[in-house]
């Protein structure tokens, strides 16, 4: 208690508890929200989100520093914490019960934002009917995966995340005792193949005959970018092999090292799932006589801990398992009439937090609002 008294009286805390800071922060957030919305037209959702909301500070017009939403929210959190300690707790009155609950709710709100910002991972699964998987893919991150040729029904894959920032770094793959360096990495690229008579022996290896990668400007919907890169495999005996890998290329490139075949592929980063998911059937329903979808649903078989069951995942009816939630996101048909279903996968341990904090804040608002409304009436009654 004494400690709290001391903290509360500390001049810094008093300054930080100023409501003027709150007003400025709310105004800045207001501006940032507007700016970040309009900027989405030009920059796309992801880039705008990074620049305006996830950043601590960014440069407007290239040179004017402007606080990002993350910084403002940090200041607001500190401000809120100080206010809660100095004003509300210290001078508690029943009249302020609503206000107190609102601000505790908001503190929890900021906490949940922090937790989710750091723990939530979004990925997806794209499955053909009857196919199954136990991994999900990232929308934007890429990995260089490698495995040794072995049993056809089972493979142990070793992978490192690769991006423009891993260029030059040595990535050590323990299963084959070799290292790989990224020579060049393009976040979005176009692949070209060379005709067979032009192919020289010194050209980097590629299983699909890709001979050239040309960087392209990254598109606004980041998940549509297809990365490509030039990689170099260093074998302990000193020899090196160059690989030209492209994200849309589904054929792994084999490299013979010490008489063993190792496969390499550049693919969207994979996340292991705690279950195996198999798509049994996909159905789309349309409003009669139109091409407007009424509902999509997938019947899937999930297997975990040796047990399996069938589940239907549809729009607004996701499957939740542990910290994972699987949503019906999209579907596709290929030229042969095969149906594909896409599920968005979200791993979020803090999922329940916003529910609690928003409920709490709303209750506080409701209590305060009703108390104020009836309070006004009482005063008036007293007057008359």
């Amino acid at each position, binding site marked *: 208690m004494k400690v709290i008294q001391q903290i509360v009286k500390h001049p810094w805390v008093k300054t930080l508890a*100023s*409501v*003027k800071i*709150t*007003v400025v922060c*709310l*105004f800045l*957030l*207001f501006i940032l*929200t*507007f700016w*970040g*919305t*309009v900027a*989405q*037209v030009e920059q796309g*959702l992801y880039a*705008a*989100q990074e620049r305006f*909301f996830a950043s601590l500070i960014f440069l407007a017009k290239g040179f004017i520093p402007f606080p990002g939403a993350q910084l403002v929210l940090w200041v607001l959190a500190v401000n809120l914490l100080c206010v809660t300690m100095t004003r509300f707790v210290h001078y508690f009155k029943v009249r302020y019960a609503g206000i107190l609950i609102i601000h505790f709710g908001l503190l929890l709100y900021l906490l949940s*934002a922090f937790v*989710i910002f750091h723990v*939530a991972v*979004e990925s997806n699964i794209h499955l053909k009917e009857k196919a199954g998987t136990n991994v999900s893919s990232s929308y934007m991150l890429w990995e260089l995966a490698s495995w040794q040729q072995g049993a056809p029904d089972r493979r142990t894959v070793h992978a490192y995340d690769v991006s423009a920032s891993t260029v030059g770094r040595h990535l050590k793959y323990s299963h084959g005792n070799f290292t790989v360096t990224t020579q060049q990495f393009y976040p979005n690229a176009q692949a070209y193949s060379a005709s067979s008579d032009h192919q020289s022996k010194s050209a980097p290896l590629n299983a699909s005959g890709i001979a050239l990668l040309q960087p392209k400007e990254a598109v606004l919907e980041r998940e549509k970018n297809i990365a490509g890169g030039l990689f170099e495999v260093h074998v302990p005996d000193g020899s090196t092999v160059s690989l030209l890998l492209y994200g849309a290329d589904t054929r792994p490139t084999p490299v013979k090292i010490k008489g063993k075949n190792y496969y390499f592929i550049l693919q969207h980063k994979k996340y292991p799932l705690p279950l195996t998911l198999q798509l049994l059937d996909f159905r789309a329903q*349309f*409003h*009669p*006589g*139109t091409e*407007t*979808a*009424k*509902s*999509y649903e997938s019947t899937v078989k999930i297997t975990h801990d040796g047990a399996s069951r069938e589940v239907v995942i549809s*729009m*607004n009816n*996701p499957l939740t398992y542990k910290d994972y*939630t699987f*949503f019906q*996101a999209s579907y596709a048909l290929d030229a042969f009439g095969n149906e594909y279903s896409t599920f*968005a*996968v*979200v791993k*979020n341990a803090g*999922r329940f937090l*916003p*529910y609690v904090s*928003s*409920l709490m*804040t*709303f209750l506080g*608002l*409701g209590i*305060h*609002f009703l108390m*104020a*409304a009836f309070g*006004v*009436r009482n005063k008036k009654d007293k007057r008359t």
Partner: protein
Amino acid sequence: MMRWICLLMFVLSFHGVVIAQQKPATEGVIHPQEIESYRMIERLPVLDNGRIKPLDTYARSTLLQFSGRQSYNRKPAIVWLVRLLFAPDETKSSKIFLINHPSIARSLGIASEPHRRYSFQQLEPALDKFSELAHSANEVPEKERDVVEAELIRVFNNVRMYIDLSHVFQFAFPAKDFVITDPALKSQLGLAPEQEKFSFLEIALSADQLKTFMEAIQRKDQSQWSTQERTVIDLVSNLFQWSGVYQNLPLNIVPDPGQAGVWRSPWDAIRQDFQKDQTRSKMKALGKMIESYWDGDQITFDLNTKLFLEETKKNSGMNAEKLMKHLDLELTYNKGDFFLYAKILYLVAFILFLLSLAVEKSWMYPAAFGCIALGLFPHVIAIALRVIILERPPVSSLYETFIFVSFVIVVIGVLIEVATRRWLGIVTASVGGFIVLMIAAKYSAEGDTLKMLIAVLNSNFWLSTHVISITAGYGSACAAGILGHVYLLQVVCNKGKEVLQSTYRTLLGVLGLGLTLTFLGTNLGGIWADQSWGRFWGWDPKENGALMIVLWIAMLFHAKIALWIKETGMAVGAVLGTIVVVWAWFGVNLLSIGLHSYGFTSGVATGTAVYVSFELIFLLTVLILINRKKSGAKFIKPYA
């Protein structure tokens, strides 16, 4: 779109043939007698835009789409539609094509009309040029089209739709292609001996006999064919050609007896199921309807409409009772003009308020309050009818947000009035209710407002609570904005301190309500998004819009605590708050990005800009006046 244009090109290439064939029905000076009552036919169910609706709604939305009006020549849309369907030539001179841009008429070589509405007759000679222009406009990517290009395509599609609709019942009109002079052949085919010119339908109904003839003819050499046999060959090849030409036409009024949920236009039904007795009897009934329409025989017309309707009910694959109940409710909704009555009553209440400023009479206050309360009735009935017809919560489309927000503002106004009894609530309700319903009416000019939803928006607890609370939040914030205007005007008009205090307290209360509801709505939206997409918050434009309202109101309340603003500042903030609401509500749709980018209308940008400028000018003027008064007061004080 391309498909439409290709189809039109295709139909147009037969246009010469078709118009020629159409002639016989209306040749010379014969005009249809028409019928008196459309009570029966307006109930006919049509599948359109994913929903089964009465023909009346179809007629209204089609005419609205063509001409921007729901009636033609002071007669309901259904009269015009039935005429177009049953006696197409009679509508050729009706000026129903609204062309908003005069330059289009000019480039088509048509004298521009004062009311911007043109008839098919006027457009017909320029159709080739029109098609060429629309085709080129269609080449321009949708986002880069300017107003004229978009208008070209819109009007051209309407003309195409008009031509299609005029062909829907072509099968029942006597045509040159089906002329039989040989009495023996007529009697063998079971056709009326006194008639020479027959319809596609009449000939098709004797298809069995024709088939027997054809089998005999096929066994003969071409040189041995008799005149009668040549006629038969002509008839059969014309039947074949016609059923090839008339495909994919609009007006799906024939349910497929085999497949639930599949409805076809009459021509497609003929091609698919003509061998079925049900289809034949339906087509016969349609043929009789057209005949009796021309004869002005109401009883036969109604009787055959009823027969057709009964057959339709049997084959619809749905609960016929429920279907008809819904259709009748929709007719009530269409004819009720509920929102019009609500608007008029709100307007009257406001006029009474203005009058009361000049001459205060004791009856004015109860009369105005009564108008608001009475106006709420049709308002609520219309919303309830929509909920029943569409079987979904009251707010799902942009149009519905307008009618719901106006409803919320009126309810808040009534509550304020009950609590304060100073005209304040009446002003809020009448201004808010009237203006927002006017915007709704403007928005409904795009066609049928009872729309189906895309999969992700389909009924869900979180979604419905989210949109209801968020729109209620919009409504409260708008009401607070109106109160802000009132407060500022009261300050300018030197109202007493007590009046100002009362308005200010109400303003704070309504603003608080707005904050609470918008916060609730935003969070329910978050919960829904989390349930549907796995993320509570995604910085989507519409989410951001709602957040901006919350941030703005929260900022106002904190600025008040910080003593940065006082009463006037709060009122100004509430007025500016309406701009934030307008931005969140439909301004973000202008960006046409994100998950909520539904319901984009081209006029929104101009409307929003006009509104924002109006508010800014209002605030500037009022603040200057208030400031002048303050400094004036300071100036006078020493001498007082």
